[in-house]
């Protein structure tokens, strides 16, 4: 906020230059988005022209080699897996940060945080491999076939948990200690302090963590491909196999040509659409719930 133009009464030349450079860098980040969206549009355009926009939603099934291009089952697949994972990982992640700050003994905090940082960097193929070799057979014994929505949600939860936990951790650390002292002075219990003072004060950081988590969850490819079963259908229960939009791209891109390839890029484009809706929704909720 120090560089807001309207409060800069007598800007020095260095400061002005600084603002310009910073603006340029931010614009660069924005241009990157445009480049990628443009790239997707360019690649997906032949599909929309050849196959027709409506076919993607009204065809009988997804069998691109035979000329059927319905993607709705995969949209649902992506959404369900993501929602399940975010609903599980958000409370877990925030509680993990709260645990770290207010409950865990001091000697335990550093190693615990290190472990979570480590979890954030484990490649999705390792999670996927673990899911495929350990988790999926377990679920299979419970209810065949094993690769399922449940397996996808579990792996995704584990994958986005560190992102949410670390962001929550960083934002809890930044809550002014005056708040805490005030709460103690008022004789509030620890839980009330956390629930009514600390968490609301950290909303902005927490919601950023959730957004990053949503992004990671909906964009995750390799692990989903390995544990979800990849059958194109709307799952009716947790044990049904299903396919996400991302797995669809990774699974078929290697062998796709022409219309099929363009249709896969359209899948990517659709994914962006889903994400934009999600991000705008979170943004809206956040705008309504922050008082600052």
């Amino acid at each position: 906020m120090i560089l807001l133009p309207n409060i800069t009464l007598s800007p020095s030349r260095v400061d002005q230059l600084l603002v310009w450079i910073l603006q340029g860098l931010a614009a660069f980040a924005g241009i990157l988005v445009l480049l990628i969206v443009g790239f997707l549009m360019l690649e997906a355009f032949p599909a929309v022209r050849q196959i027709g926009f409506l076919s993607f939603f009204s065809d009988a099934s997804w069998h691109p080699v035979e000329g059927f291009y319905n993607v709705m089952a995969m949209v649902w697949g992506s959404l369900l897996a993501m929602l399940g994972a975010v609903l599980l990982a958000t409370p877990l992640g925030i509680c993990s940060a709260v645990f770290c700050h207010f409950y865990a003994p001091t000697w335990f905090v550093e190693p615990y945080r290190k472990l979570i940082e480590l979890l954030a960097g484990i490649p999705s193929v390792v999670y996927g491999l673990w899911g495929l070799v350990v988790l999926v057979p377990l679920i299979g014994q419970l209810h065949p076939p094993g690769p399922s929505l449940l397996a996808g949600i579990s792996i995704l939860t584990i994958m986005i948990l560190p992102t949410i936990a670390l962001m929550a951790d960083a934002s809890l650390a930044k809550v002014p200690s005056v708040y805490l002292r005030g709460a103690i002075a008022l004789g509030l219990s620890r839980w009330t302090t956390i629930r009514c003072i600390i968490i609301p004060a950290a909303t902005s950081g927490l919601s950023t963590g959730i957004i990053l988590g949503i992004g990671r969850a909906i964009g995750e490819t390799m692990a989903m491909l390995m544990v979800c079963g990849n059958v194109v259908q709307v799952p009716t229960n947790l044990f049904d196999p299903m396919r996400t939009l991302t797995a669809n791209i990774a699974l078929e891109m290697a062998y796709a040509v022409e219309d099929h390839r363009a249709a896969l890029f359209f899948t990517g484009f659709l994914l962006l659409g889903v994400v934009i809706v999600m991000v705008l929704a979170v943004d809206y909720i956040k705008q309504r719930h922050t008082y600052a």
Partner: protein
Amino acid sequence: MIMLSWPYHTLACFLFLLMMGCESSDRMQNSAKLVITGSSTLAPLVADIGKRFESIHTGVRIDVQTGGSSRGLADVRQGLADIGMMSRPLHATEQDVMSRPIARDGISMIVHQSNPVQALRNEQIIKLYTGKIHNWKEVGGEDAPITVINKAEGRGTLLLFLTYFQLQNIHIRAHVVVGDNEQGIKTVAGNPHSIAYVSIGTAEFDANHGVPIKLLPIRDIPASLDNLQNGTFPLSRSLLFVTNFTSTTLAKDFINFVQSAAVYDLIAQHYFVPISS
């Protein structure tokens, strides 16, 4: 002002990298470098052959990249690669490139080791994959639901499977769809009531190395590399190199090397079958 150098550093770095990019792409055309891209099935084999080729011809570099058969084809068409690797046959619309077979491979039905079923007739396999048989009991196995594993749309192994059993992918009722062979094998190993089809070489290697899977014969012919080599096993495919019609001498030399007897041991090491002359 020292502080300001941060963003400048970035810009300088970026420009520098860009410049290096442009400069070396000029350099690349002069040196003896061969770029080969495409099928991930072939990539490990071709990378090993490339290393042997490099050790014979000093100054030559063979860069092998994966990304799938259609990337191999696209890269050759766009001139990004000298040779493309493909694990599926060329479609009728893809005759603008030249193809040369370099090795052969087959597919085998696999089940879990603990499955008492020793063989399946072709009609049974078709019924299984089209969802007309649901339980192993119906084909002489235990009383357990069958988990049918299919390959993803467009894959070379899927095309071969569909052609041989005269099926269409729309009619297949799969419970799991997998990509790579190893994914299929790991899924079968983790689910005692599943059935899948994968590349014979991969399956034979894994079955010999303690992975709990079993290869089923097709029409009483056991699925093995030997039967593939002597031509009795029916489910086989060629793995291809594709090039433009005007390829460099280096590319031609390399293709001849790959087709020669000098690399038969490497092909066998990777569980494929050489093209016999």
